[in-house]
């Protein structure tokens, strides 16, 4: 037994014992513990296996920077991978497992890879596993995935609730340590709306980990802040992303600490979207590891973490301790250990002398100080058993038997959020760390995050930053209160020791624990030419994975700078990216899941389609009936029946989703003339015209039928998916190029329901439902509109056709849509009326060679490519016309629309199939592709539309579609399959 719980002290509640399990074993802890502190109290320091070599790893840190103690929390639908044990608040009934141990933590088969570790050098993904090629899929990848995986995602849907909050704040303070609290207090007293967030359950930051605390000040400050109406304190809330214009995202964990006791109906986590006038970053600092052989043995821990465990959680991670430090801070840990009853065998300090106050205190307590020395190696298996200490510059190493080594390689300000905000870092030569340099947003850093590690300086900076932030947010004229008195010890300058000399040849010296990257991996990568820090990261994987290199980045780039002979600032850092710590997908999705992911638009007739068992297709946000299966029909059978019915008798389609735009004003006709490729000025009132619109580059943009309702009033229809795009397009030209034109546009898509019935019996149905209307050819010709009464409902009746059959589209106010549909169904019953969906509609229009924008076109197709010159005006100008004369647009070998008839009538080509003239040549030349392809019950064969280079010159020729396992031959024909034999077009 080495790790143990102190009888007194700390911030745990000994009256509330909690039970939990780790790796299948039951343990006890107390309220106030983290999973990590409770494990240490139970002497269960071994918490995982390393990523590549499966070396035993122990708890290393006490906060977000923890690289080793990654936990799989819970089981089943609520399991969560890769939680850092150092950040998991203990609750009763918590279950946790190591994420990377197979088959078990104690007996890990993967540790055998340690014996073959020559295979896992820098760039091992690109070297070891490349040969033989066939091995990657079958052998290497599955093996790597099983051994190297970090945790398991739940397979079930997340049962928990998540929320989002959007707020504005005058001042957002990230971090609730001394500097952050001081900033929040100063800003709030000045009158600013303040939001202060801290990732921990308790605000106080480093004050919670120190013996000489400002407990009184902390209590008074928290009390004052809680009492202020303009302050929001957010504990358990991580500021994880800093975006443009002071837009920040926060993750609040509301019930995670309650475990199964979490009340129902309370959201588990909340995502805060904050727009802040001013930001204060008080995010503290992370301690750096020291790099020597065996520095990953369980029992080697960051010195600050050791102090935190002792002072905050009343657990001592070892009984016989050595401290290895490059700065005075490590001596504080030595004093904490001694005060907690552990034996401090030595403080190993590579500096030639230790002149500060803390070393003096340690010396006075009889702690041995080894100046000019370093720990060159640590040994032990699942637990540290000894360290080797040697004089710098040579000399025999001396072994020290110990079970805890507290290390401190100095401190790195947590500049993640600062860097995300596009701030530029500056290398501080005296402090040996990157500190915030050039600021680009309305923001300031304070305290350890700014490189001011001493408590007094941090507090002073915090108060000043808070007051200045408030002033810049419009709350000036307030003098910040004086910071509390702090008696900081006098400190001697720290030493930069990026890699312990004399450690070579003694074993692996790790830089990145989470990714198992060693100092020699980094040097090898540099020798192989990966000299840019971004290349180094990708090649060695240092700084990747869930901790994003919080403990390893600075050491790694310092070693790289040494290997390449450049300074550290010249070497630079990799990019800091959001999120600072992992964020659940649940929180990002919030309530926008399932049906709430995206708006669902349905027509007034939708309930009828549902009752009739329609299968729906998503068209943009619309739900459209795709087909209506009957009595066990599959899709093909249903579509065959529906498409046949339209040609032989009568079909009915819900066309309500078509985009509808009301175009009104004295210049409406002139405006449409400029928009459409064909003319609208001369269109008679009550007449309809199909139109194509192009972008100014001449490419087809949308199509639809527009009807003239009056001299100055048009009713435009657009494609279902293009409605919003078209409205924006029209507005753009009206507002930015032709502001003098008097035209007003109104979207009326939702105002009208449209029932389209088509087929030889369509006229009979209209006559029955609208007895007063003259439906004969002469009084109601093709491409015209009549206003009248249909089934007792006020209606606009359009005689237009997208199928080639006689067809009427009846528009009624939306709330009458279902009634109209039911009336049409009743009247059509004697004709065998068949509701048809979008798939049959596509078949029918393709038989006629009618295009669908977005299917036959893809933004690179002109009306001329489609063979639609008949719709392109020679007289007037319109958008896109000039571009038809561009050399590229008028090439003869552009892809042109053709029809295809496969040689085998039973063949239905896949849409998107590539088309070639010669399948044997190499490289094979692609000359076109299939845009639409169906089985036609009316033709009794498969048929397709395609775009083929110079296709109109190749009617009658055979083209090839090389598919998987076969090559299909097809004859190129004109893109109209019904009228090929001279059969007249129905109207």
């Amino acid at each position, binding site marked *: 037994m080495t790790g143990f719980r102190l009888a007194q002290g700390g911030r745990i509640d000994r009256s509330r014992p909690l039970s939990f399990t780790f790796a299948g074993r039951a343990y006890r802890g107390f309220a106030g513990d983290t999973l990590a502190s409770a494990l240490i109290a139970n002497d269960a320091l071994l918490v995982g296996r390393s990523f590549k070599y499966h070396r035993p790893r122990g708890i290393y840190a006490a906060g977000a920077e923890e690289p080793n103690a990654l936990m799989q929390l819970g089981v089943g639908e609520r399991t969560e991978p890769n939680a850092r044990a150092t950040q998991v608040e203990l609750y009763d009934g918590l279950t946790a497992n190591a994420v990377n141990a197979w088959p078990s933590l104690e007996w890990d088969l993967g540790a055998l890879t340690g014996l073959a570790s020559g295979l896992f050098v820098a760039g091992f993904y690109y070297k070891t596993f490349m040969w033989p090629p066939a091995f990657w899929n079958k052998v290497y990848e599955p093996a790597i995935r099983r051994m190297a995986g970090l945790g398991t995602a739940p397979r079930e849907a997340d049962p928990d609730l998540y929320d989002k909050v959007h707020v504005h704040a005058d001042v957002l303070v990230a971090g609730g340590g001394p500097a952050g609290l001081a900033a929040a207090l100063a800003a709030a007293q000045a009158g600013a709306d303040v939001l202060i967030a801290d990732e921990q359950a308790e605000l106080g930051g480093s004050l919670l980990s120190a013996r000489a605390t400002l407990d009184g000040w902390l209590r008074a400050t928290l009390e004052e802040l809680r009492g202020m109406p303009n302050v929001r304190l957010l504990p358990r809330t991580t500021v994880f992303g800093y975006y*443009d214009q002071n837009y920040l995202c926060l993750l609040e964990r509301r019930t995670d600490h309650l475990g199964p006791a979490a009340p129902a109906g309370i959201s588990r986590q909340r995502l805060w979207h904050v727009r802040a006038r001013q930001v204060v970053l008080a995010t503290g600092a992370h301690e750096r590891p020291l790099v020597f052989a065996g520095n990953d043995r369980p029992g080697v821990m960051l010195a600050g973490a050791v102090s935190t465990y002792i002072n905050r959680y009343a657990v001592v991670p070892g009984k016989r301790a050595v401290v290895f430090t490059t700065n005075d801070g490590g001596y504080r840990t030595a004093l904490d250990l001694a005060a907690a009853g552990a034996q401090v065998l030595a403080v190993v300090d590579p500096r030639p002398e230790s002149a500060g106050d803390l070393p003096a205190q340690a010396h006075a307590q009889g702690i041995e100080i080894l100046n000019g020395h370093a720990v060159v190696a640590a040994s032990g298996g699942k637990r540290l058993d000894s360290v080797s200490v040697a004089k710098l510059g040579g000399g025999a190493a001396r072994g020290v038997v110990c079970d805890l080594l507290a290390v401190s390689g100095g401190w790195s300000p947590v500049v993640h959020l600062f860097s995300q905000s*596009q701030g530029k870092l500056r290398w501080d030569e005296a402090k040996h760390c990157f500190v915030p340099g050039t600021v680009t947003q309305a923001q300031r850093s304070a305290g350890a995050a700014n490189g001011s590690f001493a408590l007094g300086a941090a507090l002073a900076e915090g108060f000043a930053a808070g007051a200045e932030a408030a002033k810049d947010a419009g709350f000036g004229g307030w003098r910040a209160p004086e910071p509390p008195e702090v008696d900081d010890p006098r400190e001697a300058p720290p030493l930069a020791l990026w890699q312990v000399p004399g450690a070579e040849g003694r074993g692996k010296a790790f830089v990145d624990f989470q990714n198992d990257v060693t100092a020699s991996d980094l040097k090898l990568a540099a020798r192989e030419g990966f000299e840019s820090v971004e290349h180094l990261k990708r090649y060695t994987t240092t700084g990747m994975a869930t901790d994003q290199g919080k403990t390893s980045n600075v050491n790694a780039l310092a070693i790289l700078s040494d290997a390449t002979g450049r300074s550290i600032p010249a070497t630079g850092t990799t990019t800091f990216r959001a999120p600072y710590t992992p964020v659940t997908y649940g929180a990002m999705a919030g309530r926008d899941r399932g049906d709430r992911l995206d708006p669902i638009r349905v027509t007034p007739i939708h309930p009828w389609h549902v009752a009739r068992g329609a299968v729906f297709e998503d068209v943009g946000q619309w739900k459209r009936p795709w087909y209506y299966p009957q009595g066990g029909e599959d899709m093909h059978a249903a579509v065959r029946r529906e498409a046949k019915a339209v040609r032989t008798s009568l079909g009915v389609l819900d066309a309500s989703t078509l985009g509808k735009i009301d175009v009104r004003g004295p210049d409406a006709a002139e405006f449409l003339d400029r928009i459409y490729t064909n003319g609208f000025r001369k269109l008679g009132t009550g007449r309809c015209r199909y139109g194509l619109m192009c972008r*100014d580059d001449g490419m087809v943009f949308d199509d639809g039928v527009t009807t003239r309702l009056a001299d100055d009033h048009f009713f435009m229809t657009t494609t279902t998916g293009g409605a919003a795009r078209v409205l924006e397009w029209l507005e753009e030209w009206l*507002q*930015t190029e032709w*502001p003098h034109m008097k035209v007003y546009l109104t979207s009326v898509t939702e105002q009208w329901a449209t029932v389209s019935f088509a087929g030889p019996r369509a006229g009979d149905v209209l006559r029955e439902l609208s007895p007063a209307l003259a439906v004969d050819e002469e009084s109601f010709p093709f491409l015209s509109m009549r206003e009248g009464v249909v089934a007792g409902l006020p209606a606009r009746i359009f005689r237009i056709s997208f199928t080639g059959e006689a067809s009427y589209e009846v528009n009624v106010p939306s709330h009458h849509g279902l009634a109209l549909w039911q009336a049409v169904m009743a009247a059509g019953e004697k004709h065998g009326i068949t509701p048809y969906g979008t798939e049959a509609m596509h078949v029918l229009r393709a038989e006629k060679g009618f295009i669908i924008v977005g299917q036959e076109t893809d933004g690179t197709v002109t009306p001329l490519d489609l063979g639609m010159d008949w719709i392109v005006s020679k007289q007037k100008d319109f958008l896109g016309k000039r571009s038809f*004369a561009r050399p590229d647009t008028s090439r003869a070998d552009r892809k042109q629309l053709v029809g295809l008839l496969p040689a085998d009538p039973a063949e239905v080509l896949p849409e998107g199939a590539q088309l070639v003239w010669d399948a044997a040549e190499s490289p094979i030349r692609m000359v076109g592709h299939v845009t639409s392809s169906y089985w036609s019950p009316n033709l009794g064969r498969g048929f397709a539309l395609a775009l083929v280079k110079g296709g109109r010159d190749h009617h009658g020729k055979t083209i090839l579609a090389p598919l998987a396992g076969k090559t299909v031959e097809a004859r190129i024909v004109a893109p109209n399959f019904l009228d090929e034999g001279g059969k007249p077009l129905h109207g």
Partner: protein
Amino acid sequence: MLLIPCPWCGERDETEFRYGGQAHLARPLDPHATGDAEWAEYLFMRDNPKGWFRERWNHAAGCRRWFNMVRHTVTHEIAAVYKPDDPKPELPE
């Protein structure tokens, strides 16, 4: 996500807007009297400065109006918004 001050509606989230690219591109008055090179210039070629940029935005999910904005393409700072017929503001230093 930007907070964009629509000149008609005030500050709104970027999600309500649609980007319209470079502002103040003059469409040739007579496209058919414009040579291929000049027409291609108008159609395809856009400035891509690192710094201040005059650009068009449309408040698509709001008032549906187009306006111009002076934005810094690195810092996303917004120096000015103005209506299509307002005078062009000077670019900040």
